[in-house]
């Protein structure tokens, strides 16, 4: 077997971490936890600037389509992901931003194949402070509270519109710094407090 060359330079270590299989495995378990327990804030264990890259590297490859209308993924990372680029109303994965209320409707899936409903990744300012959301639904023991800063109120209106006809719908992942939270289509959200 070939001896792998390991670069000990720490910045390079950070840069390659999201592309390593075992880092992706560990990150996936955190994403799985986030989807299993909506509203629970998890950390992927990547550097703050790398969380989005880590998340994308874990879930996206040449087998899926990706939309990045606000150019939040660097050209290098896009090339490494190797996903086919698509418009946000066609893509399986959409990278978006909390400040920009979407003017598109992501794929919702069909009654027979609701799994085609898109996963929308929203970069927000902060999780744990800001507007208060009361969450109920599968994965939540009774009710839980989530605070999100930097998510325009229009997002919640759009989300409830997309998710009116279960099983069709859109699953959200909110990313801020090192942390992320998942809001699958089954989570019912009541928005409280100022934004």
């Amino acid at each position, binding site marked *: *077997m070939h001896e792998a060359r390991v670069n000990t330079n720490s910045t390079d270590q950070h840069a390659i971490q999201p592309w390593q*299989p*075992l880092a*992706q*495995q*560990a990150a*996936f*378990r955190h*994403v*799985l936890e986030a*989807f*299993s*327990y909506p509203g629970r804030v998890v950390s992927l264990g990547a550097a703050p600037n790398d969380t989005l890259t880590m998340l994308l590297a*874990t*879930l*996206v*490859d*040449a*087998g*899926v389509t990706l939309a990045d209308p606000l150019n939040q993924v660097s050209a290098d990372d896009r090339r490494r992901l190797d996903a086919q680029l698509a418009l946000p109303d066609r893509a399986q994965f959409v990278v978006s931003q909390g400040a920009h209320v979407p003017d598109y409707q992501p794929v919702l899936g*069909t*009654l*027979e*194949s*609701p*799994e085609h*409903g898109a*996963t929308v990744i929203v970069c927000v300012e902060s999780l744990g402070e800001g507007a208060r959301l009361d969450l109920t639904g*599968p*994965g*939540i*023991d009774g009710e839980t509270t989530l605070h999100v800063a930097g998510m325009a109120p229009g997002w919640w209106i759009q989300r409830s519109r997309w998710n009116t006809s*279960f*099983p069709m*719908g859109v*699953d959200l992942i909110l990313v801020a710094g090192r942390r992320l939270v998942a809001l*699958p*289509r*089954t989570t019912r959200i009541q928005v409280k407090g100022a934004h």
Partner: protein
Amino acid sequence: MNPGYELPQDEAGYSFGFLDEFAKREIRRTLLKAISIPGYQTPYASREMPMGRGFGTGGLQLTLSLIGPGDTLKVIDQGADDSVNAVNLRHFVELTCPGVDTTERTHEATLIQSRHRIPERALTEQQVLVLQVPYPDPLVIVEPSEARRKVMHGEGDYSRLLTKLYEDIVQFDEITISHRYPTRINGHYVIDPSPIPRYDVPRLHQSRALVLLGAGREKKIYAVPPYTDAMPLVFDDVPFRIEDFRDGQGHRRACSRCGATDSFLDEMIADDGSKTWQCSDSDYCNETLATRTAQIEVTA
């Protein structure tokens, strides 16, 4: 598996967990959709595994996509850690996932792959249960076309399945499904919960642990998320019943080995025709036995 067999790791260069990273990523994406749509049979590209389909390849592919160094895996078959299917699957994971621990104790495991049983000991939020599924679709007995079944599932239309259950009651005074009892998840999709006994169905309801179901041959993955309703399909006037372990006098039978009266029992028939009952969950039986022995020692 041949005990002398060694995976030719040097020549083949298998990746951690045997599956290639594309296969794992595809299963991981499917898992997230399966959790987001509780009970929906999410299609995925089931890969060839070095064992026959029908031997737990669906569950194994889920386990291999989830597992990493630091995980502790428990594999059970009909409640036991030492039956053929469990031993082989555990051995395969030990071969292909260096750095992973295995255990026979439910409470030590972070990941539990199981065939036909849910452990007696209540699972926690730190654990994930993977069930091996032979037949994922409960509607297959009433509708042969998968395209039509998908519409029926989407619409939550289970009238024909209920008719089948009703016919059972008319003919036999009882719903005659002993295992794989159709169970409605989050008030919408009805799943085949894999061949677990009726006794285990209530454990799916509002479970603390995530439950994942993998059907390798049928290429489907579905999930019962934690804290989610899982209700067996019944009629208002015919309540759901679990297995009855009472003897002729109405006493609950005890395990002949550990004495437990609160576990699912297997019936053993000896050569002379006599019957004994024993815990199906071997870890639970061992634990109860150890506790009893310790108590006897203290009092002695």
